[in-house]
């Protein structure tokens, strides 16, 4: 059977999911990490793969075990990261750093499942750290959001980071 | 004027052997050498500061740099042009923050010291706080440069009171310069504004690229050439009838086919225009120069100005440390061109050598990598190859300067670095050798010299 293009999702869905993205960014900016965890599906997959700069014509085979990751998290691992940040021992975050996320280029697309949408977005993360060191990290994201009850939950996120060398001394932050 | 710099007097000749054709890479990255360049080259040369068309009226001014020194270039009520340091003699603040404009006064933001367009101190905020004798108005103006000169619209200035006249500095290179500055009645003008970009490369890479490097064009700009010209590659070079000509570090590389650069501009109407005026150009400048104009060509005026005759981009490489320059580009056209042709030229320049131009985009990356790779201590001690065409010098009965046959050549680059070495080595300006001995003499108009050369 030939695939027919899917009709765009209803406007109410687009608005609700876009609001969820903005809410998520606000919760993270405000370090409401438990609030953020509550926006994640039980089976959430949260990934950021490593890349390398290669010539367009390069024919090197892929690594058998994959390129390695910056994040490859399920809900348990994300909870573990949150636990660490909340442990009181993460000196790099004390005093807290000034972090602000801007979400843009949001596209909400229908999927074959009625209760799921695919979402493309761009995240700019401004981090002002010790002694005024400021870094702007940018990333593209492709998400799967699922409606459960009255809420939209993040079911999967693939992040593409736009830096070949990480320009900061840590990544104690979620995209 | 001499600028003393405390420090070493190194032997710069160890950084190159131009008879063998090599350079040491440290001249492209070393901070001490760069500092010395600012004193010995930029503080002593005639430097391009403006085209007179940029400041036509009394009170018109623009700000620019001579080396790393910020200056104001201002048109005076009597029509002359003055160039002065853009720095208040009181606490040193920059007095003019605009790129260009028209004014009667430059007023410093800090304490309100006010200067007229000649740079004379005219007054200040709360002037009564100075007692009589505290301040000598005459000696606290904006510091004027030693000399200002104008060659057919191009305004140059120098900090060096010992410098020869601008005509002598350009010397026989004027024979070539007249091909862009005087190929038609009415002279030239800059149109549009100045486009600035910052490139993390040594300033000399830009100059040497334009002074002689036709060789990179077919490779570096292959994609640009093809995209501008229906998939056609770079036009073939006739090595028997193309040349490098070098005069005291200035240089022009060119063919004699008359159309190559006009073709690369990608604007047929412009090509038609020049073909139409070409017979007149031949009357004005002689047969040879009318054939050179429009050919594949590029040129640089020592130390830091370059242009592409025919393509009409005019540019200056302003040094900003050993590993950075600011590139300023303008569009230069003949004043008497019809407006629609001027517009075509502008479109063509933006499409080819604007910051998003099909050719411009390829170069910066190369120069940056040529420079930044020298951060390595091992790498920077390695030599570079400048030997191409080293045995092809000729005597030409029409072309002045040191002339080499064949446009694919490093001859002009060697001439540029020879002049660089001469200036870095000689304390006294007058003792620098002429390369070559002047042939035209100090005559004002190269087009009025039919007797000297069989044109």
């Amino acid at each position, binding site marked *: 059977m030939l695939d027919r293009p899917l009709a765009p999702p209803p406007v109410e869905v687009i608005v609700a999911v876009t609001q969820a993205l903005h809410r998520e960014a606000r919760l993270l900016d405000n370090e409401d990490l438990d609030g953020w965890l509550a926006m994640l599906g039980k089976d959430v997959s949260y990934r*950021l793969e*490593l890349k*390398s*700069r*290669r*010539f367009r014509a*390069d024919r*090197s085979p892929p*690594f*058998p*075990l*994959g*390129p*390695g*990751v*910056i994040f*490859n998290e399920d809900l348990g691992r994300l909870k*573990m*990261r949150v636990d*660490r940040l909340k442990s009181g*021992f*993460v*000196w*790099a975050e004390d005093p807290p750093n000034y972090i602000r996320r801007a979400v843009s280029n949001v596209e909400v697309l229908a999927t074959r499942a009625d209760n799921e949408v695919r979402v493309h977005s761009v995240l700019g993360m401004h981090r002002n*750290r*010790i*002694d005024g060191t400021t870094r702007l990290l940018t990333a593209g994201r492709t998400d799967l959001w699922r409606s459960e009850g009255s809420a939209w939950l993040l079911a999967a996120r693939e992040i593409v980071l736009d830096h070949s*060398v*990480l*320009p*900061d*001394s*840590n*990544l*104690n932050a979620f995209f | 004027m001499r600028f003393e710099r405390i420090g070493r007097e190194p032997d710069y000749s160890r950084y190159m052997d131009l008879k063998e054709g090599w350079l040491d890479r440290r001249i492209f990255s070393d901070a001490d050498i760069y500092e010395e360049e600012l004193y010995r080259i930029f503080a002593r040369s005639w430097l391009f500061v403006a085209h007179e068309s940029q400041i036509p009226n009394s009170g018109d001014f623009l700000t620019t740099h001579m080396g790393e020194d910020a200056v104001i270039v201002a048109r005076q009520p009597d029509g002359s042009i003055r160039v002065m340091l853009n720095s208040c003699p009181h606490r040193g603040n920059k007095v003019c923050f605009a790129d260009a404009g028209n004014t009667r006064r430059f007023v410093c933001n800090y304490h309100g010291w006010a200067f007229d367009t000649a740079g004379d101190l005219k007054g200040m905020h709360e002037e009564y706080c100075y007692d009589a004798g505290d301040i000598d108005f005459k000696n606290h103006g904006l510091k004027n440069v030693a000399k200002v000169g104008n060659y057919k619209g191009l305004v140059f200035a120098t900090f060096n009171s010992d410098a020869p006249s601008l005509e002598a500095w350009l010397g026989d290179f004027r024979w070539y310069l007249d091909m862009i500055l005087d190929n038609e009645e009415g002279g030239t003008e800059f149109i549009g504004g100045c486009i600035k970009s910052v490139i993390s490369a040594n300033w000399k890479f830009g100059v040497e690229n334009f002074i002689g490097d036709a*060789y*990179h064009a*077919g*490779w*570096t700009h292959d994609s640009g050439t093809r995209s501008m010209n229906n998939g056609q590659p770079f036009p073939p*070079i006739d090595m028997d009838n193309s040349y490098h000509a070098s005069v005291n570090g200035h240089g022009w590389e060119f063919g004699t086919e008359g159309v190559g650069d006009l073709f690369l501009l990608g604007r047929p109407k412009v090509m038609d225009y020049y073909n139409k005026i070409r017979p007149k150009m031949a009357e004005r400048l002689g047969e040879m120069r009318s054939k050179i104009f429009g050919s594949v060509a590029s040129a640089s005026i020592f130390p830091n100005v370059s242009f592409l005759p025919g393509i009409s981009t005019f540019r200056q490489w302003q040094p900003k440390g050993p590993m950075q320059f600011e590139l300023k580009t303008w569009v230069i056209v003949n004043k008497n061109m019809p407006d629609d042709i001027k517009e075509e030229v502008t479109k063509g320049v933006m499409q080819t050598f604007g910051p998003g131009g099909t050719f411009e985009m390829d170069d910066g*990356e*190369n120069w940056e*990598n*040529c*420079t930044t*790779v020298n*951060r*390595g*201590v*091992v*790498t920077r001690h*390695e*030599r*570079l190859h400048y030997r*191409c*065409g080293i*045995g092809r010098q000729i005597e030409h009965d029409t072309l002045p300067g040191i002339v080499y046959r064949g446009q*694919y*050549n490093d001859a002009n680059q060697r001439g540029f670095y020879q002049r660089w070495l001469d200036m870095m080595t000689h304390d006294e300006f007058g003792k620098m050798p002429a390369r070559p001995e002047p042939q035209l003499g100090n005559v004002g108009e190269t087009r009025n010299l039919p007797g000297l050369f069989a044109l």
Partner: protein
Amino acid sequence: MLLGEDEMNDNIADLVDSRTGRQSRSIYASEDIYRQELERIFGRCWLFLVHTSQIPKPGDYFRTFMGEDDVIVIRQKDGSIKAFLNSCTHRGNRICRADRGNARAFTCNYHGWSFSPDGALAGVPLENEAYFGELDRTKFGLIPVTKVAEYKGLVFGCWDANSPSLDDYLGDAKFFLDVWLDAMPGGSALLGETQKMVLGTNWKLPVENVCGDGYHLGWAHAGAMAAVQSMDLTGLSVGNSGVDLDGGLSVAGMNGHMVLSALDGVSGYAFYPDPKPILEYLEANRQTVIDRLGEVRGRQVWGAQVNITIFPNLQLLPGLNWFRVYHPKGPTQIEQWTWAMAENDMPEAVKAQILENQCLTFGLAGLFDNDDGDNLTACTEQSRGWRTAQMDVYTNMALGRSGKREGFPGDIASGLVSEHNQRYFYRRWQEHMMAETWAEVPTYNINSLTDEEAEHA
């Protein structure tokens, strides 16, 4: 250089006192000292280039740095490995701007000169038209790294023709390197892409941190330990509330190379949330390793937490399984490159778990790595002030408490919490910085074992 050579040497003699464990902070920020390091340390020592597993086939290449010099390491047709400055001999342009790949030729963007994988200048556009066939191409090949050599998969390069052989340079550190490189018959490999990060630190601070500093673990990484620790590591606990000095060794006095090692044969995997599959692999193969490396290394060291430092800028941690090189970028900045390391005999699932866990703990968002960056950066920053630059810092923990230990080479102090190794690191640094040539750099392998002793230990 602002100081004359003699002045500089007097200065360096003063800057470090490895007997009492004192360093001047200026060694972490001074531009002059840094310039001399580039020449006397990075221009002289054997530097890690690549693991053979990263360029398995002819034409495979990997771009890296030796000090600040950009180099390409290329596998040749005959299987050998060569390395060259990544810079065209014509105008100096960088010829390769990719991180890695496979290529039949490297062609410069500027004028199109192309070089074959053996460095030869293979093609010059318009060679006849522009050069009239007069260019002697044999003189303009890529500039080769003076010496390139391999030790069991690790490829090193060196600029100094008078350096000792790689074998002699590594000296007794090979005793410990073999615990990864030669424990199992299949040898070793690095996994995944390069994890690159810019840090505002002097390059010596991360080296000193990993070469000997077990002390920071329980404090700086308390949050991460609380989150993932699943086993005891020589009694080190959250908040530095306890330590077992008999459980590990600080080993130095091996030509400037250093090792920290626990002795329990399993604690390398203490920071794996689920170490079971790896512990099973260790126990299934332990006898093989004992047969190959002897009782001490096979039973006590293989599988334990081991930190190996190869002077000046290579560190590898079998167990936590990260492999790291620091490229200096000025006195106060580095680029830190990390990979996961594995043994080829490991089952695929175990290798995958290692890559996964290395990224989790010491990757770009690593639970542990996230703690170190700011400390190293701030130690560097605090060496730049006018007053602070005149101050000293100290590595004087457990002075004079070292000696021989049965079955091991090196001058050894007890425990992972000591500053014994750091003192040897700065001593080596000083030896190199004061020597004008390799001949003036002392060679020492304290308490060296014979091959036989090592095997039967």
